[in-house]
């Protein structure tokens, strides 16, 4: 490596062997990893909840409710996540809402991903034959009951592959929280990098850390898909 390491700068002989920067700071990096996983899980739960609620709002035969759903999707998915993150952290205090960085990042990420989840689930709802909800309604079920017991279970099964994509995207998007100093994986890596300049090694390790989670997520989605569509 050509970069100067602290030892090289200090003028003291050969650079430390490859891996030293990561190994020496492993607990610090792993604590960042833990924060990343927590952030991803919490944001995923929020995104799924928002997605189900707004997908239903976008599907009800009541125009004002549909409008609310459409407004959410269009505003949120058409602005960058980084802008939303800054808005939550730096913007909200102006109106008196002061959030810890982690909370701001979690809200921004959940709300942002929720817009895409909404559209994925809505497409699933549209893919369910209209006869299904007619059959449910003709048995006396309300719109809500038909949704809950008949349409949504089928819609969500059909939505698993795109939801898998979104979960993976969400997991990687947690790295944007580093921009507001949330001590997650990338932020901690940047701190170590600024101390050691072992760029190649540190960011390689960080990339691997993301892969360790995202690759199994893809496999898990495939498994879930087969389970949920067993009846076919």
């Amino acid at each position, binding site marked *: 490596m050509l970069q100067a390491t602290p030892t090289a700068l200090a003028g003291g002989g050969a650079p430390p062997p490859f891996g030293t920067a990561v190994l020496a700071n492993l607990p610090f990096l792993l604590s960042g990893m833990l924060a990343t996983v927590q952030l991803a899980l919490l944001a995923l739960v929020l995104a799924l909840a928002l997605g189900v609620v707004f997908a239903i709002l976008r599907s009800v035969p009541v125009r004002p409710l549909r409008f609310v759903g459409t407004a959410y999707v269009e505003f949120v998915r058409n602005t960058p996540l980084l802008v939303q993150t800054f808005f939550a952290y730096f913007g909200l205090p102006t109106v008196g809402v002061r959030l810890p960085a982690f909370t701001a990042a979690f809200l921004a990420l959940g709300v942002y991903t929720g817009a895409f989840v909404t559209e994925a689930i809505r497409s699933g709802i549209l893919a369910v034959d209209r006869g*299904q909800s007619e059959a449910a309604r003709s048995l006396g079920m309300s719109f809500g009951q038909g949704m809950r017991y008949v349409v949504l279970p089928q819609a969500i099964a059909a939505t698993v592959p795109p939801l898998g994509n979104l979960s993976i995207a969400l997991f990687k998007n947690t790295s944007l929280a580093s921009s507001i100093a949330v001590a997650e994986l990338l932020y901690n890596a940047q701190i170590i990098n600024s101390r050691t300049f072992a760029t190649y090694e540190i960011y390689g390790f960080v990339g691997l850390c993301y892969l360790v989670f995202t690759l199994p997520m893809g496999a898990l989605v495939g498994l879930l898909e087969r389970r949920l569509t067993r009846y*076919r």
Partner: protein
Amino acid sequence: MATSADAKPIASPATTDAAIVFDAVHKRFGRLEVLKGISGSVAPGDVVVICGPSGSGKSTLLRCINRLDTIDSGQVYVYGQAVHDPKTNVNQLRAQIIMVFQQFHLFPHLTVLDNITLAPQKVKGVSRGEAEKTAHALLERVGIPDKAGVYPGQLSGGQQQRVAIARGLAMSPRIMLFDEPTSALDPEMINEVLDVIRGLARDGMTMVVVTHEMGFAREVASRVMFMDGGVVVEEAPPADFFARPQQERTRQFLSKILTH
């Protein structure tokens, strides 16, 4: 059911003891008027068969009985209750009027047993145990007692339609509506479904059946109604309807479907 041309005036549809009353029902899809003032009634225990060419409005008329389709003017009464009155609790009403569809519309993600027990539990508050007991008895009645645990996709069309009938019967309906129940079936499966409907007729179930099965109509119907172009052209007991059709349009229709 009286035709719109010679409709008997209905004094007060809400107080007659008819199961279904149509009072000048009009329905349009955009510029196309599909029901042009249908009036008439169905008595409790009647089996009314509706036939006619496609686009004649027969399925739409059926779907107006449980408000799956809305109407533009007129009214439909079910046991005195105005179906299209916004004040009518449509879920309560639909629980008593079961519709059996051409494409079955079973819930593919649920087993046969869960298909049958879902609505009784969620709509009528029946306990799971009670609903399952009823479901097994109904599967016995429609001739497939051993299929409770399978998913609809594993059944033949005829079996699926019989499950759909059992699912409807589980709600203890007062009226059953059949929308071309055998049109999506292989020929050799038609009879197993018609047999179940014949059984219901024998038990005195009030039914309106849209079908092209004229043999079934001749044998089971108390009255046959022929629709064309959004009006009821002719309506008569099956013996008269098939032997002495009064209208030229009816004769044309019957000659086309009975000669092949």
